[in-house]
């Protein structure tokens, strides 16, 4: 079946048909072979259902009946400025690239921003299609992930970043979903290459603007060369009505270090996948997830880590909080493949339930096919420690303050690992704003 074949008109959902229509009306580019393969596979698999193992906690049935149109590109000046939602404060003077509905706002071609080579994917597709196809078409577990496949088939533009030296200041990618119409979908795509020995900090911050929520299907690929390092943040802070599917795929070469923070502070439904391949000896992953559910929000985070070489290390820390009737899911799967001797893996998943109607599911999983490995995992979910609460109350602290303080303390393991102090401050502020007695809590820092 070729990509020109289509989903069965009889049974295909309105959503699936609308994606096919977007496919039919696409502008052809040099990436055709890779895109066709992805679309074929997507149509063959269809949209995920709760029968899929990795989607059993997240039901997206309500999307099936929606006819989605591609979200519009917006020119600068077309929309309200985004300064107010930017993550880093002005003091940090971090360079920011805005990506609106997947379209990067860049001036000129092949520019250097914050010492990082930056180009639009449109330009890269025109100038060096082979290189781009190799990057995008590299086989990965994303081959089975429908939203990631759909992104590959339909992304119109995106960002290509190449880090070739040690860059001290962070770069912010501000992804803005601007919803001027109902039922639109955006396909932001970011490709980050870190050259051997180079390093940077890149923050992807997803926010929303406009009257209607855009369904965001974003995809980021990271390649780390030998000895390269990247501190990467993805922050989801969109509105209550929004739905977000994000896929992060990482390939790590020898002795590279990938430090990742996934922060879910908002979004009606956030599904964040991460696939990391520790392909060469000495590669290290540090994954940190801070997942906050409240007011009916649904956060589903799925990490898949493959140890494919000896002496590889992965450390995953997740802290989930659920209040009201929200639901937070953290799944992490570590595969230690044959030959990955002396691999070390550590998974620490902790959940904090703040209401009876909330739910947290933590599932660290291990699959070991090598000898001499050191793998640990633990998952605990509970309520606030009554002993701790009483201790704070016995010192005269207000009940709300005491609770907020303990919630905050629960997150400390993740927060203190952040090297970018202004990002940490902003994230802490955003967290504090969601807690009772926020002003009081602010004094604690």
């Amino acid at each position: 079946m070729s990509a020109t074949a289509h989903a069965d008109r009889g049974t295909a959902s309105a959503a699936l048909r609308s994606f096919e229509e977007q496919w039919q009306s696409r502008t052809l580019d040099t990436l055709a072979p890779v895109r066709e393969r992805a679309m074929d596979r997507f149509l063959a698999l269809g949209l995920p259902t709760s029968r899929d193992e990795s989607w059993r906690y997240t039901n997206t049935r309500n999307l099936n009946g929606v006819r989605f149109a591609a979200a519009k590109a917006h020119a600068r000046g077309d929309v309200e400025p985004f300064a107010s939602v930017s993550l880093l404060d002005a003091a940090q003077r971090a360079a920011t690239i805005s990506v609106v509905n997947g379209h990067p706002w860049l001036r000129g071609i092949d520019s250097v921003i914050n010492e990082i080579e930056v180009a639009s994917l449109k330009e890269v597709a025109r100038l060096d299609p082979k290189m781009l196809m190799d990057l995008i078409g590299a086989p990965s577990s994303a081959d089975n992930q429908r939203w990631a496949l759909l992104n590959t088939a339909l992304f119109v533009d995106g960002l290509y970043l190449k880090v070739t030296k040690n860059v001290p200041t962070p770069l912010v990618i501000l992804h803005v979903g601007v919803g001027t119409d109902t039922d639109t979908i955006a396909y932001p795509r970011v490709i980050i290459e870190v050259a051997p020995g180079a390093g940077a900090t890149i923050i992807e911050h997803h926010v929303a603007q406009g009257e209607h929520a855009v369904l965001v299907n974003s995809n980021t690929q990271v390649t780390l060369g030998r000895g390269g390092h990247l501190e990467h943040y993805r922050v989801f802070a969109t509105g209550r009505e929004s739905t977000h599917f994000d896929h992060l795929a990482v390939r790590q070469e020898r002795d590279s270090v990938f430090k990742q923070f996934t922060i879910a502070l908002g979004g009606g439904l956030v599904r964040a996948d991460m696939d990391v391949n520790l392909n060469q000896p000495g590669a290290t992953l540090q994954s940190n997830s801070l997942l906050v559910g409240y007011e009916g929000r649904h956060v589903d985070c799925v990490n898949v880590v493959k140890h494919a070489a000896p002496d590889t290390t992965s450390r995953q820390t997740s802290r989930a909080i659920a209040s009201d009737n929200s639901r937070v899911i953290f799944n992490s799967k570590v595969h230690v493949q044959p030959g990955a001797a002396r691999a070390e893996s550590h998974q620490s998943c902790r959940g904090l339930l703040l209401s009876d109607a909330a739910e947290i599911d933590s599932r660290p999983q291990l699959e070991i096919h090598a000898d001499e490995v050191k793998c640990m995992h633990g998952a605990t979910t509970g309520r606030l420690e009554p002993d701790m609460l009483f201790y704070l109350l016995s010192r005269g602290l207000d009940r709300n303050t005491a609770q907020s303080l303990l919630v905050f303390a629960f997150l400390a393991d993740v927060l203190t690992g952040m090297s970018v102090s202004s990002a940490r401050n902003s994230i802490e502020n955003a967290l504090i704003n969601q807690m009772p007695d926020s002003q009081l809590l602010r004094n604690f820092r």
Partner: protein
Amino acid sequence: MGDVDLLAINSLLAIENLSARVAGKDILKGVNLTVNAGEVHAIMGPNGSGKSTLAQVLAGREDYEVTGGSVAFEGRDLFALRAEERARAGLFLGFQYPVEIPGVNNVYLLKAALNAKRKAAGEPEVDAYEFLTLIRQKMKFMQMSESFLTRGVNEGFSGGEKKRNEILQMLVLEPKLAILDETDSGLDIDALKIVSKGVNSLRDARRAVVLVTHYQRLLDYVVPDFVHVLSGGRIVKSGDKSLAQELERRGYDWVESQDA
């Protein structure tokens, strides 16, 4: 008649026939005790006699169920106040097992506690510089290391450091009534002296201290005005400091056999 009035004015804590239950088990079975301003009381007793339960009930622990009796704190019904309100009103519990709270800074907690008390008294928040000066001065007095300032509440503290931290908190908050639950347990002689020095520095005519302890040792350094023996959930004997010495010599069996 004048005597009666004076007693009423001076009485900081009046416990009458107090009964309490923990996890379905009756622990306190009619405790009577009056503590006046300016006094130091020691409550002694064997393990399981209800000493810690009494301390926790007075501080307002919610999973301890009061099944009878009354407690007045400065003439107010103590049980009408929640734990945090009791603290702000000037009641302080020094914990037998101070809780470790990683991620909450020691100093922030102290500052919040002090400000909560000041706010309840209609006073403005403490000035940041004044506060730090105060803390440093009290820390020096308690011979605590500077690293305390940056650590989480009791996080990784030794047993002795935790107890010293309790006393530090007490000195900063200047409570009217301090109930110190086995503050002496697990302390070496040097730490015991420091902690005692802290407690003694708070002694004055407007305050009172209730020492809950298993051993007489602490009472060599903080000399009590009254000693009570709690046994089987009731105070079975009261006396002056010599009672503690007698207990040390003859053991709790002596009192219990007398009681029976």
